């Protein structure tokens, strides 16, 4: 999974399919992006059509760890299926979320 540095933010480009196999890669990449305290990681879901419980597990663990370090994990660009999976798992209230990456960047750079 690709992680880009944009300003003070780390932007993770979530792949089209975040299943058990790709979640492992995502977990490793996010762990690397998390080094140090504080900071913000933005997960861009605009290319993602599919997420399973493995993917949710990685996001939950990352969000917990970021919170512990005084940083935050922000999500953006949900497509309908991804939104529904988050919704049915009761995950929507747990994450800070924006409709698009641009919106997230604007809001977070303030």
């Amino acid at each position, binding site marked *: 999974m690709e992680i880009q540095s944009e300003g003070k933010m780390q932007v993770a480009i979530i792949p089209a*399919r975040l299943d*058990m196999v790709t979640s492992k890669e995502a977990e490793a990449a996010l762990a690397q992006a998390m080094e140090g305290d504080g900071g913000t990681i933005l997960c861009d879901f605009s290319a993602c059509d*599919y997420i*399973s419980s493995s993917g949710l*597990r990685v996001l939950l663990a990352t969000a917990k760890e970021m*919170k512990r370090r005084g940083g935050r994990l922000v999500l953006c660009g949900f497509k309908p299926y991804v939104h529904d*999976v988050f919704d049915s*798992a009761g995950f929507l209230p747990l994450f800070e979320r924006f409709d698009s990456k641009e919106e997230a960047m604007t809001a977070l750079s303030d």
Partner: protein
Amino acid sequence: MIRNRGIAFKLTFFILLSCTVIFAVAFGYSYVLSRQILMRNIEEIGQRLVAATVNKLEISLRSVEEVPGGLGSVLELPFLKGEAQVEQLLRTVVRNNPDIYGSAVAYEPFAFESKQRLFAPYCHWQKESVRCLQLSTDVYDYPNKGWYLLAKEKGKAVWTEPYFDEGGGDVVMATYAAPFYRGTGDDRVLMGVATADISLTQLSKVVSAIRVGRTGHAMLVSHNGILLNYPDEDFVLRKSIFTVADIRGGKAMHRIAQQMVDGKSGYASFVDPNTGEKNWIVYAALPSTDWSLAVLFPQDEVMADVTALNHHVMIMGVVGLVFLFIVIVLIARSITRPLCLLAAKTKDVAEGKLDFDLESVSRTDEVGLLSRSFVTMSSQLKRYIEEMTKVAAARERIKSELAIARRIQMSLIPKAFPPFPDRPEIDVYAVLQPARDVGGDFYDYFFLDERCLCFFIGDVSGKGIPAALFMAITKTLIKTLARESSDIAELLGRVNHELCHGNDSCLFVTIFCGVLDVKTGELTYTNGGHLFPLLIRKGCEAEFVSGGRSMALGVEEAAVFAVDSLQLSPHDTLYLFTDGVTEAMDEAGNFFTEDRLRKDLSQCRHYSLPELVLRTLKKIHLFARNTKQFDDIAMLALRSFGAEGRGPQTEMVGDEIVLSNEDEELQRLADAVQAFGATHAFSERMIHDVNLSLEEIVSNVIRYGYEDTGAHQIRVRFALRDHELSITVIDDAMAFNPLEAPEPDVDASLEERKIGGLGIFFVRRLMDVLEYRRDGGKNVLTMRKVVG
């Protein structure tokens, strides 16, 4: 770093360090003090030695000094006449004074006899006898000798510098010379000089006898600094103390030499520039002669004893420390060895090995105490674990008994659809979605003969094993007694009668039971306390079937059951259900209600039976979303086609994919779902839901299902008919019933949120019906979902 070392090392290190410091301080103090004491003693002894020797020499010299005076006073008297008498006197004096070497009386020219110019008899010791001779020879011109001139000039008794008396005594000697006179007062006339000699050889014996250490020695110095006695004979009379200073002592020694010549006494040290050795010197003057006596000794020699003593103490100290080291190491090991052993055992205990022996238990010290506590702790732990295991096993047994009861109960319910593929007159479809605990809903259908289909749906009051058993009995009774009974009322009456017998647990069961003549569509039914089913006539709204409601079975032995009947036309549908449907609750606590069911069914009346039932189930799920299912949900639908039949049956299509237990197989599975979905025109949403459900199930199996690491097969079958997609996953992993998995708490906060169970939760949500069974060592999970 010391911090990271073991107790044994620290103990040894610090104790040894402390002991070494203590020893070094004590040793150093004792060394310095003993040196000081010794130095003081040596100074004292040296001074005492010098004083004693000076005293001894003085006595000798004094006794010599008395002689010339005595002689002079005798010779001043006019008694002595002639040479023989004077010589006789001398001989007697010498013989009576063993300290003197010789004595002479030397007259002034012509003083003894007017015609005799010189007269000087001299007597001295030669071996054991006294020899006398005349000094007035041509060779020995005594009036010009030093000793004579000195006494004559000074007019009083004086000591001469030591000299070799050639032609006289023929030895190195010092002479005490005293003038004697005739007459008194101003008239007195010098008659001559009387002398007494002392042999330096004799004095040397006294001085040479002094020995200090190995090379320490004494030396006698004249008041001019000439050496009168020295270990090296060549120096005697030839060299002065200053020469010695030049050779042996440098400037410091020079100062000492000067002090000696000046007749001072003292104690000083100097360093020999040749050897670097420190030497000590004690010196004192001889008052009578102005000579000086010195005792000179090297420090090392007198310190030899102290040095040797210190060496011994040092060796003893080192040996002591080595001994201490060994003792500490042994003690430390005796402490740490059981501790290390204990640490190892602790690790064992942590790994669950609770049986062990500890030698250190028998010790009476703190280590023994710790060991005993440890053993006690372990045995308590063991007992506790055993109890816990027992409790857990008991709980597990109950749980598994419930699960078995559940499985038996579910296995009694027919689930193969369509059940009568060779009967075109009728379609039957049913679902039973159990609540978490063992519930009591059931249904069944069977042909009594060629034309009559008997069907029923029921609900046993209560839950748990008794309810399951009661249900099994009821179902078996109906099936057994159906063929023997003439009508349906008689059937339920007999079943009721049997159930009332020995019904100690006061359970009861509500049943709606019907018999349909599939050819004519004639339906007779009786309702034992159950909900009335809905009837959906072709092209009409759904309506509740009416009729008499009899009492539930198992309550009253004499209960009578009313029979009603109605006529089914082709394509009419009868929809039976239990109260789990109408009493499904949403988050606000509202029931699903019979009316909502009626309306929903009315909308979907043109659907195939599987579609109708599964859609209804989905609606109930959507309604009850996020609330726990309290009761079993059972629905049974019949569609009658009459004698003309339903027409050509829809073909069933299927597919199968075999996966190995590797993560990478998931992509292949996803591709297969995509392909199957595309072929049968599934919506994107449908494909997504199937994909997600299958990934959750299969990944669960791959990840947690196998205890070994070997290769396993996971079989996934797709079957599609009448808009009903049925997916069956078959694997040989360890038994796992997803329906019994705990529900996740989807309302927990981020910190409290657990991820477990979410996958299965998705599957239950996305699929309409889940059925699980363990069959021949394999998990068989069937998921049904209506396509649309």
